[in-house]
């Protein structure tokens, strides 16, 4: 059987030749992405701004305008109604009402009873109601968690490698998160708790590639002490390229299937990680590695921490 080789043997792509262009483009993309997110804002779910959501499944297709008119009659506030896939499943979202924290629950109850009355056979599949207080805490906790995860991983890499690598990892992460945020701002996909979980996963997984490449760079730095830094980075990137491609592809296949045929509720989570892996693959090559050049990593960078003689013996 002939085995599939996505990356042919002896591939030698001069990645570093485009490093400045790539860095500038990445920088522009990151800034644009952040700026766009700040300008347009994210479509935050009730997890983060409070409010109520009811998910209804109807026995027969219902027109969205008709449903909107019905909900408006209830006088529960400005409803935003979204079809989930077909005309039989809708998500009705309502702002959190003025007044005491307990008032929000009355609204969901109202919808719960009113909808099945108006549409026989309709079923309220899920109802959520989050008060302003809880949503503030959730938003705050999510931000802290993402920041802590980024920092924790950067520190770990600093300990395992050198400080330049830690900085490189942090910049890579910042880029990946910024781009994914921009995507969510652009598509208006709803950001809920699941998406935050996705962001944390991206923090872990986008670094997967980076760590593997860094590990190889470290190994090559020890092995080829005389080699200039740019050719060495190219060598390391090419050596790990096959692995980068195969692994990314595997994860993308698994996530793509989840996105296409998985439960609708976790679509946001799946697409965020899918995107994060894609962006992470790019950034591990074009951000993680060139940053090392900028920060002045040299072949002797690892000799400070390791005794010269103790450098791992590598057969020629």
């Amino acid at each position, binding site marked *: 059987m002939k085995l599939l080789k996505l990356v042919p043997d002896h591939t030698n792509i001069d990645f570093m030749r485009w490093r400045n262009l790539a860095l500038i483009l990445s920088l522009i993309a990151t800034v644009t992405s952040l700026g766009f997110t700040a300008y347009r804002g994210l479509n935050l779910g009730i997890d983060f701004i409070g409010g109520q959501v009811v998910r209804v499944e109807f026995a027969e297709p219902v027109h969205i305008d008709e449903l909107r008119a019905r909900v408006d009659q209830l006088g529960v506030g400005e409803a935003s109604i979204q079809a989930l896939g077909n005309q039989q499943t809708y998500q009705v979202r309502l702002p959190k009402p003025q007044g005491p924290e307990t008032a929000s629950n009355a609204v969901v109850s109202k919808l719960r009873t009113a909808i099945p009355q108006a549409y026989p056979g309709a079923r309220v599949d899920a109802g959520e109601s989050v008060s302003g207080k809880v949503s503030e805490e959730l938003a705050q906790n999510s931000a802290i968690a993402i920041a802590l995860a980024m920092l924790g991983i950067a520190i770990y890499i600093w300990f395992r490698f050198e400080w330049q690598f830690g900085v490189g990892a942090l910049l890579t992460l910042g880029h990946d998160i910024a781009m994914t945020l921009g995507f969510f701002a652009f598509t208006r996909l709803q950001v809920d708790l699941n998406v935050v979980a996705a962001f944390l996963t991206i923090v872990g*997984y986008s670094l997967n590639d980076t760590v593997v490449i860094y590990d190889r760079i470290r190994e090559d730095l020890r092995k080829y002490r005389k080699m200039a830094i740019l050719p060495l980075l190219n060598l390391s990137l090419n050596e790990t390229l096959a692995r980068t491609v195969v*692994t990314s592809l595997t994860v993308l296949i698994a996530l793509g299937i989840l996105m296409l045929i998985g439960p609708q509720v976790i679509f946001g989570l799946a697409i965020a990680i899918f995107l994060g892996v894609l962006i992470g693959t790019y950034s591990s090559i074009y951000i993680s590695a060139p940053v090392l050049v900028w920060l002045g990593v040299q072949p002797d960078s690892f000799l400070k921490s390791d005794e010269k003689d103790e450098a791992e013996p590598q057969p020629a």
Partner: protein
Amino acid sequence: MLEFPKWKVWLIGLVIAAGVLLSIPSLIAGTPYASAWPKWMPQYKVNLGLDLAGGSHLLLEADQQDALKQRLQAKEDEVATELRRDPRIDIGDISTAGGRLSFMVRNPTQVDAAVERLRRLSQPVQLTGNRDWDVQVVDSTRIVLTPSAVGTTQALKDAMGVARDVVRRRIDPGGTKEITVITEGGNRILVEVPGVEDPEELKKLIGQTARLEFKLVDMSADPQQVQQGRAPPGSQVLPMADGTGFIAVKRRVMVSGDQLTDASQSFDQDGRPDINIKFNTTGARRFGRATQENVNKPFAIILDDKVLSAPNINEPILGGNAQIAGSFTVQSAHDLAVSLASGKLPVKLNVIEERTVSAELGQDSIHKGAIASIVSVLCVIVFMLVTYGRFGVYADIALVVNAFLILGIMAMFNATLTLPGIAGFILTIGAAVDANVLINERIREEIRRGRRLLDAVETGYREAFRAIFDANVTHVISAGIMAYFGSGPVRGFAVVLLIGVLTSVFTAVYFTRMLVALWIRRERPRELHI
């Protein structure tokens, strides 16, 4: 590389067998095969999260102001009861303004005695050296009781503990359902009830403070003044529960619902639903004496500061049993009986977060999640196979074993599988093979460099391990933080990721290494097709 002692093979085999056995009950749960699983086999099962099983999740927050108010009221009753005892000390001008209890001692010579008796009432707060109430004398005849900070904190903590138990008893009087009721963060209670799709019932049940009191009706009050909300000194105006106006009652509590041992729904002579209550010994004595002393006067039955009814005392009620009439339906009488029997809530609870998922949607999620998982596994298996041939088969076996191990470990710890957890599972499938990709690519590389087969395989495993380790630590950090900060479903996702990372190192590194070693030893291949 080839030295793979028998005991290691057995150990790895044992771990895998355990994983498979442990995961089977979860896999066959809900299918007809479930009953065929022998009783002597492991019965551990993965818990399904509410988003998969369907049910209601409520987050309740204590109204601290209300708790403090209730505590102050209780103190007022306690003080009044204490000072009425022999030798009686008359007090007046009682006020609870500003969160403090203050009153005047009518006879100035009794001030010291009163302070002495009140100090004895206050309790030391454990280990802090402080007492729960500070007793002071102001303006020589006025006594002020101020709750101390530590006392208040302790009281709130105690109240939350009681509230949690009360909530549990109300939702599940029989104590048989698999519900979660836990306190969170000092002033919150998390309630998770599988199977309940309409949280309204639940909220009604939980929301009743169910503070039951019996007070005498103040007959001296001018009805017109009462309707305007003014009551004579020592009395208060309360609304009727059915909305028919107001009534003046004496402030003093004859008997309170604390003294109940049981409450149940029943019917009166005319077949209308009412509630049968039973007092404990103290309650029965107090109730008996109060009714004895007030024959032919009306008394008010008060629930949460609303008057249910104000019947006349026709004769002393001595047995400790009583019926509460009101305009009840069978359901509302039953609910109230449950609330009364479970005790009153020491603090008002507000619902600040509510999530409900129907069983149908949960089932649908499980169904779609399972299909997506299976398709993902199959695709990845095929991809590995065409990429690495024999070594791909090993990676695939490891993948399947990994799936069982994740499920088995989750079952063993009774962990909760949530919908994002399924996503975590699929993600782990994709990522678990990463270790094998790293190893296999390294072996390819070493072979290209001209190493001999055995040497290449050995170097591949050794060199790849470092990267595998570092990469997995980054997962553990992010998943760990997620598990710590995340709530409910997100935590479920993190748990699956964490377990998946750990098991994947075992299956992808140690287990495949064993497979490779056994193969090389058996076949003595001269060339590696990778």
